[in-house]
């Protein structure tokens, strides 16, 4: 079984970090993983995205043209990748920064107002964690508890951050119901 996904956003939104945490969580769950950033021309302020593959078997292509899941942290990301997601997949839209509806109908669209939720929690920089939690909830690509462990580990030296980030993570997870995981995983896949 293979999960593959694209996480995309503005440079500062943490798309690469979210992707890395997914990959790490997958690895800790004993899966094969790969994480591939887009490394375009070194121009600032552009969009950043990464492709993550989490699989039971050695990862074939780390380049995924038609991912099974997309996390669109902002509008350009949705514009760029919406059409590529496989039918039956999942698109998680950060409605705080995306002011249009997704038009795809052959897959699951999930929404989360990541920045608004983070702002409400008094932790505006936690929007990425909200999005991560929501993505885990919406796709089930990894277990939430693995991500939780990872957050604890990453910020081990700054307990305050651990709490704030976990709160955001769980808020995101809760916001999408944290339920649709199995649907996605069951998407029929050629090479998994």
């Amino acid at each position: 079984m293979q999960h593959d996904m694209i996480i995309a956003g503005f440079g500062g939104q943490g798309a690469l970090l979210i992707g890395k945490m997914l990959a790490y969580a997958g690895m800790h769950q004993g899966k094969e993983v790969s994480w591939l950033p887009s490394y375009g021309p070194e121009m600032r302020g552009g969009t950043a995205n990464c492709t993550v593959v989490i699989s039971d078997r050695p990862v074939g292509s780390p380049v995924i043209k038609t991912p099974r899941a997309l996390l669109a942290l902002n509008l350009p990301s949705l514009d760029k990748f919406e059409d590529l997601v496989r039918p039956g997949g999942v698109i998680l839209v950060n409605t705080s920064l995306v002011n249009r509806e997704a038009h795809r109908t052959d897959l699951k669209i999930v929404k989360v107002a990541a920045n608004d939720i983070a702002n409400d929690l008094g932790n505006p920089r936690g929007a990425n964690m909200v999005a991560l939690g929501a993505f885990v909830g919406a796709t089930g690509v990894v277990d939430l508890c693995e991500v939780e462990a990872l957050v604890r580990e990453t910020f081990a030296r700054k307990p305050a951050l651990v709490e704030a980030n976990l709160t955001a993570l769980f808020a995101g997870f809760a916001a999408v119901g944290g339920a649709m995981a199995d649907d996605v995983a069951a998407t029929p896949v050629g090479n998994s």
Partner: protein
Amino acid sequence: MAKKLMKGCEAIGEAAIRAGCRLFFGYPITPQNEIPEYLSQRMPQVGGTFVQAESEVAASNMIYGAAGAGERVFTSSSSPGISLMQEAVSYLAGAELPAVIVNIMRAGPGLGGILPSQADYLQATKGGGHGDFNAIVLAPWSVQEAADLVADAFDLADFYRNPVYVLGDGLVGQMMEPVEFRDERQPIRPLEPKTWASTGWKKDRPRAVINSLYLDADTLERHNVDLQAKFATIRRDEVRWQGYHLDGDYDVLIIAYGTVARVCLTAVEELREKGINAAILRPISLYPFPYQALREAAQKASAVLVVELSAGQMVQDVHLALQGSRPVHFLGRTGGNLVSPEEAAAKVADVLEGRSVEVRHA
């Protein structure tokens, strides 16, 4: 050691350190900056030396000096920077110095772009520098293999006293994958003390002279004959490749190296599910090229498909291997564009259904 998620570039740096390399000389260039950056941090921690050279020309001559002093040493760069090293690579080969050169290839020609490419194949395997010589060329397809091959590269360099390229496409350098470093690594070849190195002459051995100048034609010719004998040994003993689905039946044999081979493997898996039989032969050593393995593997196939991130460079070696015995088809992307599994699968279908035109040397 436990698995760690690492960028290919970082894994390369770490692997070098674990292989006992304590000297790095290099100059920044995308997409391999993470190698010098990582080492600028790590080398001091292990008592090693990181020097940011003033240029690739300087870096390649610094590794010449350090290699000549008997130490494990490496440099890394990307395509334009590697071109600047070609004189030094020829000197390294001529003076029989062991050194590892990592090339995380980007798209060319000229300044080109910074996205992944495999268009330095011919430079690395055939004729980058002047004169008759060859560097050993190893091409990893994953972060783990990048780490493993870097370690092996140091052993091969030392064993043969010859420069070794590790040729990665930009993908291998930039992507993160779990990687594991074996704690107790043994050299893959028996290594002798480097008594030939210039470390100060205490008259306990012949004077060590690191040199590639031979003004007398006969002497230089003998030197060349010796070098060619060494390359023949390398061609005999150091061929590395991996096959996928070679045991079964297949109509099309795909030849691809580096991350492109992974893309092709995904494509092949998908094709096989659809009942289309394809197999893959992945050269790991590009020099020496697995001519014989390829020739043999091709026998089962009705056609051979070469897939590269270039305008078709490895195709030449495939032709040299097959000598016309099978039609050769080619799928290549340039400019930093990647081959997708879908594209590779479609090309296989094209080959099988006669929609693809054979490539030839006209």
